[in-house]
């Protein structure tokens, strides 16, 4: 089972290779080929998990709970595959959208550093190791978000940095207190100790520190302000990458930690999650509807959609967790795609401002189709992926009697639809305003559309084969809700 270290080692090898590549053009090809390799590895690991259950690797031969353990269960497998799919499409996208100048010459180096960190968080089974991967993600994302060194990017970078630094301090303090109370860092061992622990008040201090840290990472209600202040400033390739992957690492960590070992005092935690999920959905959706910059609309939208995933965790039935995972996957694909399309719109019109765009439907019918698929998927129109994701979540909520949050979720769907229609009517239907002169751009080649077509196909296929994918998420949810399989795979039966 040594293959589960490959999602970390492969990006690392690519980083070392890219240190020596100075030409951006070569780096771009290495980026595409490397991403394809990572995707193959991810699919191989996923198939292995499907056949053999939870995969475990004791790094350096140190048995759990003493050494660092890498664990891949169904949830990690799904996340690895989806992430690598996004990474592949974004690396193709970067071929056209990363300029061949000196400032971007190191783009792919930090791109793969980010991927290494993200894959690391998905496969690790050790809470301190998780922290280290979060720091890897954070440092490489600092570099990526300020790449280009424009005034706005530096300003956005400072805001992004400030709150994320505080988040990582909270996380580390949480680990310190957790270790002080339990004497272990292995997540399976923690689960074994804490599921039998009734001193819930004692654990709540650590859990709250983790909640705040991950809340900042995932951008939930009172903690999301760094996201809309920084995401719209970076290069559009970077923004697409962050939008698809970064906040979802926070969501993954929420699902992992709050199903595996922060299970005491469930009434308090689940209600807290539901309340912040409700506010996240509504405030994100409303803030999106007053914006006129495409990237700002979509950035607020990320926040609104995070609410649905947290809502699934807050309802906390197997069906709801499965819905949250389904929603996360659907959202990663569709959200990234809307950002990719907004980058192409910018390439055509030279702006992200909706007021000075128009006539795109007549000029670029293919682009219109590529926008409408993820937009409808996000709004939840059948037969696209978003409909099934929301359907599962809402069904689970009704079964469990959470009517208020369900009402909020349904109403937020309308807000989503509203802001998508706004982009559609302003950029695609409306006639191009006469007083705006478009900087004459070269006609774009078909290859620019390829990553967007890949992701649109992903949204459609996820909707068409929703039943079989739902079975996978149900299996993942079952593993999460009955952690004994995870614990036994890591620790064996004999560790107390």
């Amino acid at each position, binding site marked *: 089972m040594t293959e589960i270290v490959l999602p970390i080692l492969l990006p690392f090898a690519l980083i070392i290779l890219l240190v020596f590549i100075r030409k951006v053009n070569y780096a771009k090809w290495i980026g595409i080929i490397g991403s394809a390799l990572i995707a193959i590895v991810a699919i191989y690991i996923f198939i292995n998990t499907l056949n053999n259950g939870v995969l475990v690797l004791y790094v350096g031969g140190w048995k759990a709970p003493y050494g660092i353990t890498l664990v891949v269960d169904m949830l990690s497998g799904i996340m690895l595959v989806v992430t690598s799919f996004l990474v592949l499409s974004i690396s193709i996208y970067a071929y056209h959208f990363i300029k061949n100048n000196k400032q971007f010459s190191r783009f792919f180096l930090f791109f793969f550093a980010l991927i290494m960190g993200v894959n690391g968080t998905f496969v690790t089974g050790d809470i301190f190791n998780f922290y*280290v991967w979060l720091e890897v993600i954070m440092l490489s994302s600092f570099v990526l978000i300020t790449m280009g060194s424009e005034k706005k990017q530096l300003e956005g970078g*400072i805001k992004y940095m400030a709150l994320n630094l505080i988040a990582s301090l909270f996380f580390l*303090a949480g680990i310190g207190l957790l270790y002080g109370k339990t004497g272990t860092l292995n997540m399976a061992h923690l689960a074994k100790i804490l599921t039998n622990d009734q001193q819930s008040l004692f654990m709540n201090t650590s859990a709250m520190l983790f909640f705040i840290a991950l809340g900042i990472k995932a951008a939930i209600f009172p903690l999301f302000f760094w996201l809309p202040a920084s995401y719209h400033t970076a290069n559009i390739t970077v923004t697409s990458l962050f939008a698809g992957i970064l906040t979802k690492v926070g969501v993954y960590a929420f699902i992992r930690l709050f199903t595996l070992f922060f299970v005491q005092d469930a009434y308090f935690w689940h209600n807290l999650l539901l309340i912040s999920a409700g506010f996240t959905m509504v405030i994100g959706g409303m803030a999106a509807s007053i914006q006129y910059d495409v990237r700002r609309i979509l950035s607020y939208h990320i926040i609104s959609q995070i609410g649905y995933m947290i809502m699934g965790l807050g309802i906390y039935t197997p069906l709801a967790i499965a819905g949250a995972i389904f929603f996360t996957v659907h959202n990663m694909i569709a959200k990234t795609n809307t950002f990719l399309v907004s980058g192409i719109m910018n390439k055509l019109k030279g702006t992200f401002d909706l007021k000075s765009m128009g006539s795109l439907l007549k000029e670029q019918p293919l682009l219109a189709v590529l926008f409408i698929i993820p937009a409808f998927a996000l709004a939840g129109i059948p037969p696209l992926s978003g409909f099934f994701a929301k359907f599962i979540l809402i069904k689970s909520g009704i079964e469990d009697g959470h009517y208020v949050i369900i009402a909020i979720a349904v109403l937020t769907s309308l807000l989503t639809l509203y802001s998508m229609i706004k982009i559609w009517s302003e950029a695609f239907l409306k006639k191009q305003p006469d007083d705006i002169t478009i900087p004459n751009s070269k006609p774009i080649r078909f290859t620019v559309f390829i990553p967007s077509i890949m992701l649109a196909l992903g949204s459609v296929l996820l909707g068409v084969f929703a039943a079989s994918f739902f079975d996978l998420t149900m299996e993942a949810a079952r593993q999460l809700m009955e952690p004994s399989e995870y614990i036994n795979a890591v620790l064996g039966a004999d560790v107390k």
Partner: protein
Amino acid sequence: MEILLVALIGLLYAGGVYLILRRSLLKFIIGIIFLSNATNLLVFISAGIVHGKPAFVTGGDADPSSMADPLPQALVLTAIVIGFGIVIFTLALKSKFYSVTDKDDSDEIKETDI
């Protein structure tokens, strides 16, 4: 010894929070350094302080309950190294930002907000 360290941690947290609420970006970064040192100390004393008993076993039986726990020390070393890297990066970003915009006041950087 522990009570002294606990008091120090509290002081560092208080100072750090005060500093990150200041308007100057440089003071914000100093505040982050304070907070990260406080957090490192918090992790360090999470296993308690044992005086003069390093965890070296030279053959034979050893009683683990009387020795210092080496794991928090290893964690703190890792966290310190990460902290160094991050502080260097934030200082570099701050100096770049200052050279581009001539601003150090967080009340003046509102361009990317709503």
